């Protein structure tokens, strides 16, 4: 039972990791905490639903469509709504993401009302049993995709030139632009990538949950918890925090009480911020208000 809990914890935690990674990338490159990331998550899943049910596309093209759509949406949001506020107080940027969260939720509710849509799993099939641990193929897919994303990110940020440029631009935007780096363009791209990351997580989890306009809200808090646990603003921290949170939830649910699962993320946030605000891997700085 213990190993079973760990494995399902990793599967759930992989999704948290993807969401938290998307938010961390945005936070690092723009210093904005994105309150509409949960809605990127939701709209990504909705885009798949729309292209499958209304356009009648099969799985692969609809996913490609959803991801490209989200890239355009993310980049468009940066260009149209965030960039004009670049010189405004920082709190205005946060509010803009709250406004966007309303907008995206409102638009999807306008089209889908109170409908709750079920999406078939991307890979169906019976659970695979190894010893006394059994895993659904869909969960394996989630873990696999997250692993690929994490490896690609690691390689991109640590080994490629453009990845290092992006890191430099997020550390000191002014210095980066002085040496000829196009910081606004990078921010634009990062918004696109962040939105795609949200959508990937949404599409992966949609068959397990359900697709409805409010599905993103709870995920936002889970992502906050994962980020806080791992270390706010740290990319490896998002991965460690996401997986740890997933495992923790399952262990609490399995050994203590299933009603405590819901508040595990909140307790994690409160405990971490009071006891060790920098989280597991983060560095502690408090300059961004």
């Amino acid at each position, binding site marked *: 039972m213990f190993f079973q809990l760990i494995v399902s914890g990793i599967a759930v935690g992989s999704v948290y990791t993807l969401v938290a990674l998307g938010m961390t990338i945005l936070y690092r490159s723009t210093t904005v*905490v994105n309150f509409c990331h949960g809605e990127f998550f939701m709209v990504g899943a909705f885009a798949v639903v729309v292209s499958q049910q209304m356009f009648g596309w099969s799985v692969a093209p609809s996913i490609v469509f959803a991801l490209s759509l989200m890239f355009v949406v993310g980049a468009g949001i940066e260009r149209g709504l965030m960039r004009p506020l670049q010189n405004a107080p920082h709190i*205005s940027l946060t509010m803009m993401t709250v406004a*966007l*969260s*309303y907008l995206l*939720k409102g638009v999807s509710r*306008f089209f889908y009302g109170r409908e709750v849509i079920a999406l078939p799993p991307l890979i169906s099939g019976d659970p695979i049993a190894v010893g006394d641990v059994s895993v659904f193929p869909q969960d394996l897919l989630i873990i696999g995709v997250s692993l690929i994303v994490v490896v690609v990110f690691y390689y991109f940020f640590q080994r490629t030139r453009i990845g290092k440029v992006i890191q430099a631009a997020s550390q000191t935007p002014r210095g980066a632009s002085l040496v000829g780096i196009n910081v606004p363009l990078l921010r634009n791209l990062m918004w696109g990538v962040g939105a795609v990351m949200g959508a990937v997580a949404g599409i992966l989890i949609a068959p397990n949950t359900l697709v409805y306009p409010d599905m993103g809200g709870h995920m936002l808090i889970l992502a906050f*918890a994962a980020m806080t646990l791992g270390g706010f603003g740290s990319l490896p921290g998002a991965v460690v925090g996401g997986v740890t949170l997933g495992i923790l939830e399952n262990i609490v649910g399995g050994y203590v009480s299933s009603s405590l699962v819901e508040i595990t993320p*909140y307790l994690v946030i409160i405990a971490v911020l009071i006891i060790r605000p920098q989280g597991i891997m983060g560095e502690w700085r408090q300059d961004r208000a």
Partner: protein
Amino acid sequence: MTPAGPSAHRVRKQRRYGLIALLVLLCLLPLVLNDYVQFVINTMLVYCLVAVGFNVVIGYLGQLAFANAAFFGVGAYATGLSMVHFGLPYPVAMLIGTCAGGIVGGAVGLPALRVKGYYLAIITLAVGELMRWFYVHLDNITYGSGGFNVPNIHVFGTTLTDRGKYYVFLAAVVLGITSTSLLLRSRFGRAFAAIRTNELAAASLGIAVNRTKVIAFAWSGLIVGLAGALYAALNGRVSPDTFGLSQMLMQFAIVVIGGLGSLAGSVIGAVVLTAAPELLRDFPGFEEIVFSLLLIGVLFFMPKGIGGLLARKFPLFRERLYREPTDA
């Protein structure tokens, strides 16, 4: 102190007469309203207090704390439950709800001494959701996820109608806004603004930063707790899902659209954002779209909200953090 010239004197007089006229109008208002509009107006009054209380922390103290819906919920639950379980009369229950809000407010102020900015935003959001979990799972006290009905309020043997509630609410709002305004114009209010601008500088001027922060949070909790107490009476029902993330974001929208650091703005924001959903309730999703467009418009064109815009155009709406000399 700024010398009070003849024009400052005139503005002060205008403001005083304006407020008196407004109050008289508000007292006469129920005579021309039907029941539905009366209910909507009552809701507006509740959210006026919510916005004023929230503004103390987010607008004046400048702390990104998102536990306001939790204070609201605590006020409503404490009021409702003390009526249900102990059969207390509404005024006493209201007092309990207000104090409960103040205590929780002060307690939430404690982490604000340690974490700032986004960290504070996240920890306070977590506190809010945690409270909601308690409402659902302490079901032998709070009646669980379905919520509970608040008993009817009796005054001199008759049940209080919406119209009667209106006067109770109006009195509470006048009391809440007046006292908050007085607090903000005292040395505490100026200390809040000093901490918002620069905490280090405030401390070096001899302001006890920690104590002042806890006072601001407790005051905010007190006012929002009072709003919660009114909410319990408003539709006679209290349930956990009223006090979740969406409530929190709506209160945030009210304060931002109204104007951070503006009491008049808080009231305007509350009125606009309470009316909007009522007008748009037949169209699913429209409420959120309108909210978001309002927010985006305010962020682009009025960085200080409606209140800030009015203050720039009309001296009548300028809210100073000191008391003007009265003898001029």
